[in-house]
């Protein structure tokens, strides 16, 4: 575990921002921090960054209690982010890098490397106000990861990027994971969560309502719905399935038939296959797993 929070409570004047939130972030993973607006994600992130302190609860980082020098091992890209408009890009990147503890020499060396990689060397002497929003975001991304932090925290990293740059960023994030960095990733974009996250925590109304490995969660939230393409007699198939299943949908294609069923009592896919395989040729068998989007909406709506 690179990061562990234990029963974090944070109370603001008239609302409870975090209510006993515990999370465990395994090393070298991408950890999605999800939740509706105002749920308390940003507060939790700020606590990890030591921008605010919790009222009670503990934060452990890399095996020890979180301490002031840990800011050098954490990179943070806030949702609300900007740069000094009147400063030159290179100068500014150097400033942020040095605030993160890099020496002048190291900062310049790795900045040049990253500027080259992102093909933005020409911006070094430009003022930030001359850059577009997407360009500035690239600079911010570089500044965040420059000091090779063990833990990276990205709050809505893809907002403001075009699809090409989103891909570039995703590739870099996956690269960082490969190199051993751990990434906490806060977003509302569920498609990208499914794509790159290993674990998630869903925070709703200041509480941790769901935590775990993403595939496991999706399976656990499965409704035991199966979709089968087959060749054979429909009546025969229905007979074989028995009363245990409710038919949601069925149809006829040119070369095969389609059926969608829901198990009333929980049953594995294998059991269903063994029931139907006797008299039908299975072309396609699919368990319908809910998307993170569905799970998110379901939990938040149910909690209302």
């Amino acid at each position, binding site marked *: 575990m690179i990061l562990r929070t234990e029963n974090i409570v944070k109370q603001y004047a008239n609302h409870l921002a975090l209510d006993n939130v515990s999370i465990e972030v395994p090393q070298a993973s991408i950890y999605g921090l999800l939740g509706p607006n105002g749920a308390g994600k940003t507060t939790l992130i700020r606590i990890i960054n030591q921008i*605010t*302190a919790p*009222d009670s609860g503990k934060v452990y980082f890399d095996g020890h209690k979180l301490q002031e020098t840990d800011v050098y091992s954490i990179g943070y890209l806030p949702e*609300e*982010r*900007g740069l*000094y408009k009147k400063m030159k890009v290179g100068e500014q990147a150097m*400033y942020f890098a*040095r*605030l993160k503890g890099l020496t002048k020499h190291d900062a310049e060396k790795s900045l040049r490397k990253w500027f080259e990689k992102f093909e933005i060397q020409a911006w070094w002497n430009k003022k930030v106000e001359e850059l577009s929003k997407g360009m500035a975001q690239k600079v911010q991304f570089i500044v965040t990861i420059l000091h090779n932090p063990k833990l990276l925290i990205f709050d809505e990293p893809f907002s403001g990027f075009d699809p090409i740059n989103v891909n570039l960023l995703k590739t870099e994030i996956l690269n960082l994971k490969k190199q051993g960095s751990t990434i906490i990733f806060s977003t509302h974009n569920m498609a990208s969560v499914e794509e790159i996250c290993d674990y998630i925590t869903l925070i709703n109304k200041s509480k941790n309502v769901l935590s775990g490995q993403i595939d496991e969660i999706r399976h656990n939230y499965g409704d035991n719905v199966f979709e089968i393409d087959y060749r054979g007699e429909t009546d025969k198939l229905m007979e074989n399935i028995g009363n245990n299943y409710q038919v949601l949908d069925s149809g006829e294609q040119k070369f095969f038939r389609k059926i969608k069923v829901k198990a009333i009592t929980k049953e594995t896919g294998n059991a269903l296959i063994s029931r139907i395989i006797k008299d039908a040729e299975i072309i396609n068998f699919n368990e319908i797993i809910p998307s993170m989007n569905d799970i998110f909406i379901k939990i938040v709506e149910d909690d209302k």
Partner: protein
Amino acid sequence: MKKILLVVKREFITRVKKKSFIIMTVLTPILFACLAIVPTLIAQIKSDKEKVIAVLDDSGLVAGELKNAGTIKFVNEIKPIDSLKNSLLKDDNYAVLHIEKSEENEIGNITLYSEQAVGVDVLSMITAQIKILAAQIKLKEYDISVEQIAQVLNPNLNIKTIRLDEQGNEKASDTRALMGLAMICGILIFFIVLMFGIQIMRGVIEEKSSRIVEIIISSIKPMYLMLGKIIGVALVVLTQIFIWIILFGIIIFVAQSQFSDIVSQLQSYVGAVSFTKMLVCFIIYLTLGYLLYASLFAIVGSAVDNESDTQQLQTITGVPLMIGYCMMIIVSTQPDNPLAFWGSMIPFTSPMVMLARIPFGVSWFEIIISMTVLLATFVLFTWIAARIYRVGILMYGKKASLKELIKWLKYKK
């Protein structure tokens, strides 16, 4: 500590590199020098062309007595006034001065004809000359000489001001000159504190409104960011004053003749005890006063989202400064006013009021108490500012009221 230095360096360098800073720094002394030199220069480059004023004196009292001055030359004429007026339009005469006859030994109506409007300086020169002539004529009637009158009107009196110190020793003092110097110092403190206080406020707002602040405070504590900003701007102030002193020195050195008065006055100050006291106090009060108000302006900056929202809070910060300024003016004429003592003790006004009091003699004891109070208040307010600041810079979207600021002060962290 290393991080504060990084912030100080950034604040300093970005400000010093700004065009407005360079222009202000270089232009101000030049502007002052121009104000001092240009009028004399303009006087020197006046046209050398002679301006002839024809004088037709019917009274016979004035003609021949008028003295030429500068380029103005008086020429007596006896032609009738109409032909003089006609010739004025034709030839090059500048003006025609017609003095009518009145009673015996009495100057009658005076008329000055001219084609172009006559300059005020010429008019007043003529008026002055004729006034004296008229007075002399009258005095002659009473048989009094001009010198006698001069003695009556300007008796040769000279009041020396001598202060007794505690041992009863006498010290000559020129309070007026020192008072002037004190006022200049006080006014400088007022403007510098206000100008650079607002710069700090703008800096905080910039970081807040462009959303830089959250990136920065994930690397450095808000308190250090604020201190770094205040110190960085302070260095800018000191640099600017230092450059000004050097530039003024150069200007005064180059144009010594123009400033001979100032130079000799300055020389008479340097080395005098009160001058040193003044200089020391100026630098200390400027620094402490600036630091105190800087933290107040930092609070204002952290409490708002953009500059147009600062009005109310800026007023609260600016009013004590204004009061101090007014007090200073009152104290410079009424040093015994109880306002003077309290004004020079209350930390929000003391930087200006105490300086105004120094020419009238203030014991070091009082000065040190006043400075200590100021220092303590600065420490207290920096602490308060840091607490409000770290909450304020992360609050977007609403303008905080004074009540809210107090609530922020109580937040744990």
